[in-house]
Each structure stands twice: as C-alpha cells, then as structure tokens.
C-alpha cells in the first residue's frame, strides 16, 4: 500500500533517497522534542503554522499573558497565550476527549468551521425564539460582534490538535449564548472560569486572574455567585468541545442545557442594570438632600 500520511511519506522518501539526517524532527513529537533552532524551522504542518522553539514559546506565553492582562482588547494575544500554554499536555488531553466521544470523533472527521459564511445569520434570526440558533444570533446582535473575529491557530504543532484549538476558540460565542453571560469583563471572567473547569486549558485559568482587575462589587459577585457556578457546572457538565453546534441550532436552549448538565446563571446584564439604576437613584437622592440643605442655609 503506498504511503498516505506525512510521517509515512517522509519515512519512505528517506529510504528512497538513502539520506539519513540525525536531527530530522519527528512531526508528532514536535511539541515535546526540540531538535531545531529559529534558523532551521521544520516545514509547517498546516497553513500559517509557525513551529516555535521552547524558548520562543515560553517568551510568547509570558509576554502575551502580561500584555493581555493589561489590555484585554488584544484578542490576538489572548489567543497566542492559549496556544503557547496548551502544549504539550493540555491540548492533547482536549483532543483525546474528542476522540473518546462519538460526536467528538465526528467533529474531528468533518472539521466544521464556524464563520459568517458557514452560518447563515438571517436564517438563524428566523428561527423560533427558544432555539439555540436564535439565542446565538440575538446575543451576537446585542453585543455587536460577528462570528468572524477569531484568529487562526498558528503555534500548535500537531495538525489535529490545532483544529481542536480552533474549534474551541470558535465555539466560545456559543458558550456565551448558552449561558447568557455578556461580553463585559465580568461576564468574560466568569465564562473563562467555566471553560477552565470544563476544558482544563491553562489560558482559561490564567484569564481568571483578571478577576483582580474587576471593581469591588463585580469581584464580590464573582466569588459569591459566578465563580462557584462556573466551577460546579464546568466540572459536572459534559465536555463542551464535543457539542456539534451546527446540528444543535434548532434545539430548544433549556433542553440543550439540561442535556449538557448546565444550570443557567443569574442574568448578569439584568443584575448590572439593576445595580446601575440603584446607584443612580441613590446619587439623585443625595443630591436632592444636599440641595435642600443648601436652600435652607441660604434662606436663613
């Protein structure tokens, strides 16, 4: 049988050409075995792939973690941090979790991608309001985001693990739609805690470190309500990476949540709105009281 995968091909070529290179990097073990320098990178495993040395990966992990903590708008650095910290163990664990589940295996075989071309947003808007697709597109419209904002994976060496990372990244918006958490910093931290408990990717855990950049009330809510919710549900729920979202667009949201074992958290937008209004009312009362005192004083 002719060789049909990259490892067999390169082995066959080596036999044919009878040239042995003692430092030929093994494609599958690439992430754990550094046999190359920055001047001698191995060929990319997929389009856009950049094989990094351990030193580069460490520097990228630290640099991107610090800068994205200071400036959370740098989504590209959050993505890079995720890729730099996921190897060698955590992304393999996620990919193996997909391989253990029949739907996960189907996803790895079909390799579906989520973008505005593969998802027809007008059709989703036409769905009944209790469906996942409708919740997703309503959430997209409310937050003002599009499904195309995700960077391509570049620093994961194994091609299939790179797809798993890409899938995890693209599904993040569906997690928002399923849980109803908004894209404000507070909601993102809660969702990242949930993702960390569910996928065990280190970047999600590091992102929870952003809880110390939240305001006092938000932090208290995280420790009291959303943090425990995230850990409880992340651990006990099914692996979210194994959900074939494209097939669940017409499923009822509550039924999907029940099937996956997730409770709906308290609506964060409503809570924040209520708190904002309460603060506004208190401020107005204080001002009115201050005006009364001032008028009484001038009247005297």
């Amino acid at each position: 049988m002719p060789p049909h995968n990259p490892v067999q091909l390169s082995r066959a070529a080596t036999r044919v050409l009878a040239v042995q290179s003692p430092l030929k990097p093994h494609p599958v073990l690439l992430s754990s075995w550094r046999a190359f320098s920055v001047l001698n990178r191995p060929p990319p495993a997929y389009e856009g792939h950049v094989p990094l040395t351990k030193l580069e990966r460490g520097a990228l992990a630290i640099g991107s973690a610090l800068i994205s903590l200071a400036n959370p708008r740098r989504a590209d650095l959050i993505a890079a941090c995720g890729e730099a910290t996921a190897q060698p163990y955590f992304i393999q664990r996620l990919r193996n979790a997909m391989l253990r589940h029949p739907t996960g295996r189907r996803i790895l075989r079909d390799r579906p991608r989520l973008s505005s071309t593969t998802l027809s947003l007008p059709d989703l808007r036409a769905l009944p309001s209790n469906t996942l697709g409708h919740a997703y597109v309503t959430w997209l419209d409310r937050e003002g985001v599009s499904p195309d904002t995700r960077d391509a994976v570049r620093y994961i060496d194994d091609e299939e693990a790179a797809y798993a990372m890409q899938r995890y990244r693209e599904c993040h918006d569906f997690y928002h739609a399923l849980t109803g958490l908004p894209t404000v910093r507070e909601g993102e931290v809660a969702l990242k805690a949930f993702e960390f408990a569910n996928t065990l990717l280190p970047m999600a855990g590091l992102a929870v470190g952003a809880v110390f950049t939240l305001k006092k009330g938000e932090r208290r809510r995280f420790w009291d309500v959303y943090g425990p919710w995230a850990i409880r549900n992340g651990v006990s729920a099914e692996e979210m990476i194994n959900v074939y979202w494209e097939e669940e667009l017409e499923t009822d949201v509550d039924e999907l949540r029940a099937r996956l074992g997730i409770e709906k958290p308290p609506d964060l937008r409503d809570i924040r709105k209520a708190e904002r209004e309460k603060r506004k009312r208190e401020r107005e009362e204080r001002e009115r009281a201050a005006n009364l005192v001032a008028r009484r004083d001038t009247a005297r």
Partner: protein
Amino acid sequence: MAIPPRIALFRRRIPQSIVRPVIVRHCRCFSSCLRDAQQQKSTSQLDDGLSTTYFGFEKIATGLKEARVGAVFSSVASSYDTMNDLMSLGVHRLWKDYFVRGLDPGTNPLSASPPSNALPRGWNILDVAGGTGDIAFRLLDHASNVHNDYTTRVTVTDINLDMLAEGRKRALATPYARSSRLSFVEANAENLVNIPDNSVDLYTVAFGIRNFTNKEKALREAYRVLRPGGAFACLEFSKVNNTAFDAAYQRWSFGAIPLIGQLVAGDRDSYQYLVESIAQFPNQTEFKDMIMDAGFIVPGRGWEDLSMGIAAIHKGIKPVEGSAPQ
C-alpha cells in the same frame, strides 16, 4: 488547513535541476537553503517566462512585490518607532545620528563663497523611502544648528501614503512643519517622475532600499536626479563581519524580532518579512559593486560598517563632467 506538499523537506536532497521548476508557495525556506540560493540573482526567469523576485524568503511574481511591501508598511506605520526601538534596542537612533553627522549637510551662508550673481543657496536634499521623517528632521536640524543654514530643504518621498501621513504628523512637532524647507511627496524610487535631472545635491535612503523591487533601477534613478558632484548615501542593514556575533544576531533576528512584532504590533508576518529581507539583501561588497555599476564613483572602500556590520553606510559620488568614472 490543508497540509502543503513537503517540498521544502526535500529541497536540500534533490538536485537543483529537478526542484527548480517548482514554486514553493506556502513553505518557508530554511536559512541554510537561502545561503545556497544567494548565489542566484534576486530576480530570475522561470521556464514559462514569468519573472519572479523574492519577498523575504518567499518567491513571488515581480509585479506583486510592490503591493505586498506596501501592505507590510501600512501595517507597521503606526508602531514603526516603537518597533524600531525594540528591535535594535534603541541603537537605530545612534546609527541615524552618525549617518547624518557624516553627511554634514548645509553650508554656512557667511563662509561659503556665493556665485557672483546670486545669493547663496542651501542644499536641495532628497530623502527617499523616508516616510516617517527620521532622517529628514535630522538633516534639517544639522543644517540649521551646525551651519546656521536656513535655506537647505529636504523633500521626503515614499511610496506608502500611511508612512507619509505618519511623517507629516511628526513634522508638526518640529519647526519645519509649515515651512518651505520640508515637503512630503508620494513617489516610487524606481521612477521619480516629479524630480528633474541633475537637480539634487544629496540623495539619502535609510533602511528603504532593501524593500525596493528593482534596486538597480532605483540606483539609476538616483544617478539621474543627482547633479554632477552630488552625493548618494545609503544606510541599510548588511552582513555582520564577525562569525560568533553573527550567530547570535541571526538568532535574535529570526527568534526575537517576529515575537516582539507579535506582542507589540500584533503582526508577526510583517516582522518575519523584515528580517528575511535583511537576510536577502546583498552584502557590502556586492552592494558597492551595484552602486558603481550605476555610474557612481565610490570613495575609499565604499562602505562603513556600523555595529560590526549590522548596518552599513554606502556612499557614492556622481562624477563631474570631464572626470573619468572608475
């Protein structure tokens, strides 16, 4: 994410005659392959007549290079200074200062002997690919402060409008912003349509010429616009002359610089292109020969190494009528 053909893996093992017709689009060559390839000319013809050139290590059709370099510089324009500081650890400022000091632009109007029927005129300097104005501001400052020459003027040309916009913005912080001494013009160095022959006293290009699609054409244009006796001066990255230092420098270039580009500017690919274009640029001797081929007289050795060859200053003089060029 299709797996590209593993052509690059075989490149070193299969003889050139077999691998030559294949264009490697998605694989980046190893730098060791590049050292073999450096023997070839930078532009070459394929069997079907399509002319190709190098964009970093990637081989592309010649007509596409300008647009791709344009995209790189539009992308880096706003963080250009920060990135330069990070990549060279601030040393680029010292190089540029030294470059301008060596050129010594401007003539003191009191000491120079004017032509009998005219007031002393300042230098007419053309700074090519000088979009953000680094060199232009230094030239004007030197002429004004060292020689009290307030008539020397600089025309900054660049092919990229974003870089020119950045330059105009920076000029606002200098005394030259609304004076006639500084102007920003969009132009292609290979075809300077707005500049008449024999009109420029000093032609400078700093860290620009390695991005040109056709360096020989740009050198010939430089020759055309310079007046006889005028000077061509080029500050550009070049080859390090010490092997041990070069090993460290290469690893910094290919490892740290794209990483810093990713962290600071969010653009790894542009900085990968920049370091590859540095590796692709001819060495000091070859570039000196190119300058001489364009007709310039080259003084002394022809170049001066800065920081052990990381950068080099090349100079040439357009011969005056009657004196034979080398």
